[in-house]
Structure formats: C-alpha cells, structure tokens
C-alpha cells in the first residue's frame, strides 16, 4: 500500500509575525474527519423486523437520488454517529464500547457505500473511470466483449414509470386490489385446478398436438408466457402504488446476465411494512394464476382440437410460471424468494448463501461453530440444489412421457 499522502501547512503567527510549518498526513486527517450525512429532509430510514438469523437490518433511502442501502445494525450505529460533530476517532471509540471490537476497515467500507449512495456530504466530485488494462486483447476476446455488450444493450426501461403506474392505478388498476377481486381469483383457480386434474380428453388432446405440431404449440405457449410476464410486473407496480409507494423503474433486463426478464423496481416498498411487501410480491404471480386458470376453464369447455390444445398448453404454462415464480429455492431472486426473505427478515439471504459457498467445506468441518445465520444459508443452498435437480428430472421425464403417450 502506498504511503499516506502528505500536505505541508504553514500557519502564520499573529504575535511575532513569524510562521510555523507542519506536515499532516492523510491518516491523521482521516481520524479527525467528521463525516456528515445529508440533512434529515433528504433521507429516510426504516427498521426491518429482526431476522430469523437474529440480525436486524435497516433500509436507508436517499430521497434526493432515490437510491437505497441495506444497513446492518453496526452500520446503523455508525450512521447515527455521522452527524458532522464526531470525528472518526470518537466514532471508533464509541463503536468499540458498543460492540467490543473495532477495525477502521469497517468504517472505510461503510463510508465507501455511503459515498456511492450519495448520502454523505462531499467536498468534491470525482468521476471515477476504470483504467483500461494494458496489452492487446485477442480478437475473439474483443468479439466476445462486443457480443456481450450488445446482449446487455437489450435492456431498457420505461421513463416516468411511477407517473404511468399512478395513472393506470387511478383509471381502473385500483379494482384489482379489492378483497372481492382476490376471492374471485381464488375461486377461479380452484375451479381450474379441479377441471385440469379431472380424467378426460384435455391431456390426451394436448399430447397429440404437441407431438404433431410442436413448434406452433411451443411458440404460442412461450409467447403468451412472455406477454403475460409484462402484465405480471405491471401488477407488481400497481400493488406498489396501491400502498402509496413509488415505482422507481419498469423495464427489461437480463436476469443473471442471461435470462430475458421484465421487471418493476419496487425498492420503495422497503419503506413500508413486511406484510405490504409480501402482498406486493404475491400480486405478480396472481396474473399467471388468473389467466392460466381462465385458459384451462376455456379449454375444458372447448371442443377437442388445436384450439383446445393451445388453450390447455397456455393454461398449464402460465400455472407453471406462477409456481416457478412463487417457488423460493431456485437460486433466483423471484417472487417466492422475496417472500421467504421477507418472512425470515433476511433481505440478503441469497447473496450471503452464495458468498458462503467457497468457505463451506471449511465451515462444515467445524460444525459446532456454525452460527444461526449460516445454518439458514446452508438450508437455502441445500433446498435450491435439490429443487433444481428435481425440476430437471421431472421435465425430462414429462417430455419423455408425452412423446410415448400417443
């Protein structure tokens, strides 16, 4: 690590007209630095329920920039201290008294996050840009980079999503959030499931057409699922509006850099209660449940043929999409995962679990030292692995069965 930067200061003396010079290194100044958060009108903080791992989190929102940070209880303590009146040396002492240990790195990392979120007053503005690495990239490397850039470039977002959602909510969207609407959806789902599992022509008809016209059926099923996913995120956003919170964005991106996905950024819902968050999470998959159920009911009352096969296929696909969305253990941050994270009050469960993987063998060798939070992460990883394996097995098996059926 480089030596700390030094500045030489000259201080004039009023008494004898002389002066003194002193060299101040940046570390000395760092300890004397008094971080100051933005004025209270420019941020809000909400305590989250105590998690199943015993930890307490807080969500800090920068109202000026509409950015959010998840704080641990230790970081919350530091945040409270960053009032512009206490030097980092004093903060460090207070931290040590409160938590029994202290490392300046804790503050350094937290400050970096606060700067990033823009909730600390800065004396300067810098535009950090990564410096291109030296050396000549190979052609295939450049081509891969170009393709990856183009692929990522597919992402887009709708401007003024919050205004659009507010309008949609005002002119009809509110109807979705009556209790009656909910019970109608449940009734429709029950009817659809009852019909789908009745022995009849539905499955045989579908199996026949998936074998004779696989491309048509697959295209319609996937196309419908994609179109419905737009409605799905829109309903998430409307639910957010139903509870008076802001929709930051609606758009399209590549989940994990691979899976094309529509999304609604409802981070503002963290400023509300856990129950509200779960309702917002549930609202999206209800779209697939309702439309999927309607499609199955329509198939049941149709004559056997291509239309019935299409309706049934679409219904099953939408139901499957709802189940995948609501199933929490698939390594993805879908609605089911969000519900579990909210119920456990462990908002970073997936990230923490994935971060645990490299040290997992070592931790398992000292099983008695594993903490409650780590057990939750191990449980999540285990269920994800089992679920993915079962899902793959069932699908391979289902496709084989359908092909053999007719």
């Amino acid at each position, binding site marked *: 690590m480089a030596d*700390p*930067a*030094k*500045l*030489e*200061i*000259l*201080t*004039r003396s*009023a008494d*004898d007209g*002389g*002066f003194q*010079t002193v060299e101040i290194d*940046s*570390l000395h100044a*760092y300890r004397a*630095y008094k*971080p100051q958060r933005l004025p209270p009108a420019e941020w809000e903080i909400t305590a989250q329920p105590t998690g199943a791992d015993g930890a307490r989190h807080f*969500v800090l929102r920068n109202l000026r920039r509409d*950015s*959010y*940070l998840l704080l641990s209880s230790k970081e919350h303590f530091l945040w409270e201290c960053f009032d512009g009146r206490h030097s*980092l040396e004093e903060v460090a002492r207070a931290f040590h008294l409160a938590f029994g240990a202290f490392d300046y790195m804790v*503050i*350094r990392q937290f*400050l*970096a*996050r606060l*700067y*990033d*979120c823009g909730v600390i007053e*800065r*004396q*300067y503005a*810098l535009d*950090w840009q990564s410096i291109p690495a030296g050396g000549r990239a190979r052609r295939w490397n450049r081509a891969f980079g170009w393709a990856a850039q183009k692929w990522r470039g597919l992402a887009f977002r709708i401007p003024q999503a919050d205004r659009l959602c507010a309008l949609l909510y005002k002119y009809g969207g509110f109807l979705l959030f009556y209790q009656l609407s909910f019970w109608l959806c449940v009734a429709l789902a029950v009817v659809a499931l009852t019909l789908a599992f009745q022995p009849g022509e539905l499955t045989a008809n579908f199996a026949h057409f998936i074998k004779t016209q696989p491309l048509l059926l697959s295209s319609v099923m996937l196309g419908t699922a994609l179109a419905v*996913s737009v409605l*799905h*995120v829109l309903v998430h*956003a409307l639910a957010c509006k139903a509870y008076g919170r802001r929709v*930051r964005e609606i758009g399209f*991106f590549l*989940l994990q850099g691979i899976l094309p996905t*529509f*999304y*609604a*950024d*409802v*981070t503002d819902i*963290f400023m509300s209660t856990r129950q509200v968050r779960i309702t*917002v*999470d549930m609202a*999206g998959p209800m779209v697939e449940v309702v439309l999927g159920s309607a499609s199955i009911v329509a198939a049941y009352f149709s004559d056997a043929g291509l239309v019935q096969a299409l309706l049934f296929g679409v219904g099953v696909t939408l139901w499957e999409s709802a189940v995948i*969305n609501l199933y929490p253990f698939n390594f993805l*941050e*879908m*609605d089911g995962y*969000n519900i579990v994270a909210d119920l456990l009050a462990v*908002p970073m469960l997936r990230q923490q679990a994935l971060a645990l993987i490299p040290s997992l063998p070592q931790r398992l060798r000292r099983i008695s030292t594993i903490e409650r939070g780590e057990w939750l992460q191990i449980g999540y990883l285990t269920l994800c692995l089992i679920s993915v394996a079962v899902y793959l097995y069932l699908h391979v098996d289902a496709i084989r069965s359908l092909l053999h059926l007719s």
Partner: protein
Amino acid sequence: MQTIPEFLKDVSLFQDLDEQSLSTLASLLVSARIAAKAVVFRESSESDSLYVVQSGQIIISKHVQGEVDIVLTRFHSGDFFGEMGLFDAAPRSATAYAERDSTLLRLERKAFQQILADYPEMAARICYRMVTVFIGRLRATNEQAREAMRWGLEATGYSPGNPQSAFGRKST
C-alpha cells in the same frame, strides 16, 4: 567570497550566458538580505521582479483560510522565483517567506525590459531556460494537485463505490 557573476554561472536560468552577458546581468541585479521568517512578497501584492536565491532558503505558500497557508515549494541557492512578475502585471499568486536568513538578487521588470531591448540574444537565452524550468514546474504542479487529491480522498475515507453496494428489489 564568490562574486555575483561567478555565482550566476551556477544559476540554471543563466547557464547559457557568456562571461560578458553575466557581467552585464550582474550590474542590473540588486542584492537584498532577508531575515529568517520575513516576508519577501505577499500573495496579491504588486509583482514587478524576479528573485534569485544566492543563499538561504525561501518557502512559497498559498493562502487557504484564516492564518493557514499550504506550502507549495521551497527554493534554495541557485533557484529563482517570482518570474511571473517579469511578464505580467497581475498580482502575486503566492507568498514568499525567508525560512532562514537569506540573500536574494532581484531583477526588476524594467531591467528585464532593458535586456530585451538592448541584448535580444541574451534575453532569448534566458527566456529559453525559463521555459525549460516552467515545464518542470508545471509537471511538479500536476503531481502536487494529484497528491492533494489523494490526500483528500484518503482523509475522507473515499474510495470508488462498490457496484454491488446498492440495495434494491426488482420484482420479476
């Protein structure tokens, strides 16, 4: 004791001058003794001359706030400073203090203009050396600005943000 022309031979600014030119130049310079801690010139004061440090040490500082300045550099025997005053009438951009008892040789703007008019070849040699020194000082200033910025970043614990530090929920 070294005479002024002999001393001027060791000054980088005048190293391209011959004996005769050095003698001519020496006759135009005014020697001044400055006691330790005394001010040679103040920031914002009138600027009309260049100084060559014959002996001692000069500290150059720029006002920051109240009674506090930031030290920009130090000059020792054979160095020169205040050269901006030869070319423009703008106020001094920094303050010069004698850090120790020092002897300075002063070249006033009028004298320099006389050199430009009467000895153009000599003036060209001086100006060429001056530009060379300017370049070095400009580089040093850039480096100093970078150090000051690094100081600020380290002192406030600033570091480039971690892209994963932002928190959010994208409902899909």
